């Protein structure tokens, strides 16, 4: 189908975009890469009167080294993140997850800000920003606030963003030395949304895990941290027994939905299996197990 009747406004600066958004309120939606929003418009599942196109705001697309962290502009394309040497070096989890999003032509347009603001329960980026404990910078004409990733995702396709706010920057702490990561997921075909996926970020000291972060996507209304599984790995290490116990803890912690792609039971099982694979892969990459 075709999009509903609408108008497109094309601000060339962030300030202009924020004032348009505040002026038009609920009538308007920001348009980033359009890779989630335009399908919804074509299906008439979303009917905003006005789209505020962010694609001409050049200073919202960047990847910057800011010392302890990387700052990524909301309009940075998924392809640029995938290709960034800085991201590969300092936040390898983010790079690995990006390669598992959709396909190249989608990643050429899709943005990190659009994916996070969209908050699809099966999307990779929400799990990554939870595991990396990122902060999300949000702006409106009323000012700026920083939201911790843990407080950003509220429900299916629902975030802490107010209607007049734009996500402008993602603050990605650099992975500490001695840390290792893995992003693993199962999808029916490469490029489909994950049935379940795990982002694992683990710091090791003398082969023992000292900081374990495990986040899941696809197995609930939002991505979430799996704290019970994290505690088991942190306490008992990355041997087969501990991994098995963590997998079981993860499977019983999630509350997935059944849909036409997979049943809730299957997603729960997958969550456990993916925990095992992600922890093993991260530990292998750290050289802690072979």
């Amino acid at each position: 189908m075709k999009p509903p009747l609408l108008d497109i406004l094309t601000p060339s600066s962030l300030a202009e975009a924020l004032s348009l958004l505040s002026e038009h309120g609920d009538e308007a939606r920001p348009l980033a890469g359009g890779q989630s929003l335009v399908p919804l418009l074509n299906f008439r599942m979303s009917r905003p009167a006005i789209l505020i196109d962010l694609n001409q705001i050049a200073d919202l697309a960047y990847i910057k080294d800011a010392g302890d962290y990387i700052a990524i502009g909301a309009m940075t394309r998924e392809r640029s993140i995938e290709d960034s040497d800085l991201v590969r070096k300092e936040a390898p989890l983010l790079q690995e997850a990006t390669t598992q999003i959709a396909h190249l032509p989608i990643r050429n347009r899709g943005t990190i800000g659009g994916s996070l603001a969209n908050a699809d329960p099966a999307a990779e980026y929400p799990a990554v920003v939870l595991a990396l404990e990122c902060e999300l910078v949000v702006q409106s004409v009323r000012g700026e606030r920083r939201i911790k990733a843990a407080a950003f995702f509220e429900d299916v396709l629902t975030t802490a963003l107010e209607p007049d706010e734009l996500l402008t920057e993602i603050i990605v702490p650099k992975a500490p030395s001695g840390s290792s990561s893995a992003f693993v997921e199962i999808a029916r075909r490469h490029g489909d949304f994950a049935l379940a996926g795990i982002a694992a970020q683990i710091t090791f000291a003398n082969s023992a895990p000292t900081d374990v972060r495990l986040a899941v996507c696809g197995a609930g209304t939002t991505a979430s941290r799996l704290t019970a599984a994290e505690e088991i790995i942190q306490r008992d290490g990355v041997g087969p027994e501990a991994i098995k116990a963590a997998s079981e803890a993860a499977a019983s912690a999630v509350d997935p939905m059944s849909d036409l792609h997979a049943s809730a039971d299957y997603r729960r099982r997958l969550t456990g299996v993916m925990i095992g694979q992600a922890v093993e892969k991260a530990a292998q990459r750290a050289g802690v197990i072979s």
Partner: protein
Amino acid sequence: MKAPRKVSLTVNGEALSGEASPRMLFADFLRDVLGKTGTHVGCEHGVCGACTVIVDDVAVRSCLMFAVQAEGADVKTVEGLADGEELHPLQKLFSEHRALQCGYCTPGMLMTAIDLVASNNALSEQDIKVGMSAALCRCTGYDGIVKAVTAYAEQVHGKPIKRESDNG
């Protein structure tokens, strides 16, 4: 203001312009306003890849872009591949490897493959399979498509790619 606007852009090296109302998808603009019907439309939600064209050097779904967003863009469509009667090397390989039957998916397959091969000079056959799964073909079973794109990647990057069938 929902009135049509003038959109000026370059398509296959030619400066063109046309009128588009804000809601018009770029795929429809190419086909219905500019008459470039080589670009096909399948699903209109980004899944099938039939509408894939190259905008400012990268492959994008033209069904997920608005025409007004293409103002000033440099666009390549399937019509721009051949040089007169002389087919583009990738088109020749599609023909040689029988990479099409009905041809509906082919324009999108070609544009997808060109960006995929340009994006990476060390593609494996598996990368090509994954990359070409970005577009759906209901006829060929992909065997010919993967062979054609693998041969094309070898031509472009000047080094052989190991095939799974090489394992014996």
